[in-house]
């Protein structure tokens, strides 16, 4: 379970589907019905073509490690050193996350390594999408 000392996200009307999704064990992105752009973070219109005709879709949960830092200072809810990572989802968008089930070292955290999403419950409303090295 995610440490409840972490900064807690506050869902908004535009992002509720995302947090409903992680609670249900699904990583939800959005796709434009007009231009097919898949995008993140959530908003009820397409940032590529401005269309309001967009759909929510379930992502595969597969990703690669795009970049990261290993943070050495104390932050509530974290035990340093810990990686703050940006992952690139198989569907294209990137998102910030943490890498779990993996030593937090430059040797273990290789750029472009394959990852898969895991869901870490913070409280009854919020479940965070984290990533671990892919098992297959």
């Amino acid at each position, binding site marked *: 379970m995610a440490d409840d000392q972490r900064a807690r*996200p506050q869902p908004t009307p535009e992002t509720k589907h995302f947090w409903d999704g992680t609670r249900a064990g699904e990583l939800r992105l959005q796709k434009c019905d007009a231009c097919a752009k898949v995008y993140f*973070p959530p908003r009820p219109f397409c940032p590529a073509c401005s269309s309001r005709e967009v759909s929510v879709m379930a992502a595969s949960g597969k990703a690669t490690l795009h*970049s990261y830092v*290993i*943070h050495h*200072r104390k*932050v509530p809810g974290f035990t340093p050193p810990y990686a*703050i990572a940006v992952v690139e989802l198989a569907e294209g968008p990137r*998102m*910030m996350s943490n890498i779990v089930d993996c030593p937090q070292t430059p040797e273990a955290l290789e750029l472009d390594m394959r990852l898969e999403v895991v869901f870490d419950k913070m409280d009854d409303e919020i479940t965070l999408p984290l990533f671990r090295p892919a098992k297959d």
Partner: protein
Amino acid sequence: MRQKSVAVVGASETTGLGTIPNMSQIQLHADAALNAMADCGLTAKDIDGVACATETPVQLAHYLGITPSWVDGTAVGGCSFMIHVRHAAAAIEAGLCKTVLITHGESGKSRIAQIPRTIPAGSLNGQFEQPFGPMGPPSLFPIPVLRYMKTYGVTHEQMAMVSVVQREWAAMNPRATFKDSLTVDDVLNSRMIAYPFRILQCCLVSDGGGALILTSAERAKDFPTKPVYILGTGESVETPMVSQMADFTSSRAFSVAGPTAIKAAGIKHSDVDHLMIYDAFAHLPLYGLEDLGFVGRGEAAAFIEGRNTAPGAELPLNTNGGGLSYAHSGMYGMFALQESVRQMRGTAPAQVAGAKISVCHGVGGMFAASGTIIFSNQAP
């Protein structure tokens, strides 16, 4: 609208720099403003335009006793002052005002009446970055660095040379916070902050500020100071979330602001005698050199390692010592602008002999925003 018809006539930093325990943030603005007014023989009655970022223009105008007919409160981080210069130049050229005061003051170290920066939990940053453990710029700004290093095969030793070379410039500057020489080993053995960056690759935390006074180039001739003309300007923004930068090896905001300014100035890169690239962290000069076109993609680290930006070299870069060694209050852009003005006036501690054109490039947030100003001491 007449282009290239505006000049800096007044410029000064705060009287003190580094640790200023006896001044609140608004007084740092005023201290710099009064110094800049004294520099060019003006008082508050002569100012009809004001711009600032850490305080509002309302706070500034009231505190200094100015009744402005033009204000700009653009606050997009540390390059806000480059953008203020750009907007002020356009306003003067358009006849909206005659004499603009741009101030910066920040009690970044002593934190006396500093306005806290908060991230709402419902903002995109609050929902999609903060839960994963960042704590301010040292944890966020270096996030793209490993991708940049892998893409171009840059080594930790090359990256460390940014800090080493800038310390050489700082050693010539009595006002610089850090002046002792550095080696690559010193940098790579310093305390780890956020791998791959160590403390000597992160900016200082300082109290201080600065102010600029701009007017028409025509009026500038009547001032006691040597006019520093504005040849070209640029600005842009990309994203408030470093995780959402389109390309981790390049800043889209840099790639708009820098080339826009260079094109407006009508200069070639080889015309540039002096360069400031806002260095909150050691990778920024690399991105700046590439995004502004001074070197090709992936060439910046070798360029700096090869001492092409060091004292005596062809492209003097961050000649005050930069945010890494001179001072950094939180929003550093005003200090970079002050150094460009000093170089164009011929009064910099590490003066570049015969310099005629200076490019001053700023960043705001974590690659969120950018502003570029090109100065010259030659009338356009």
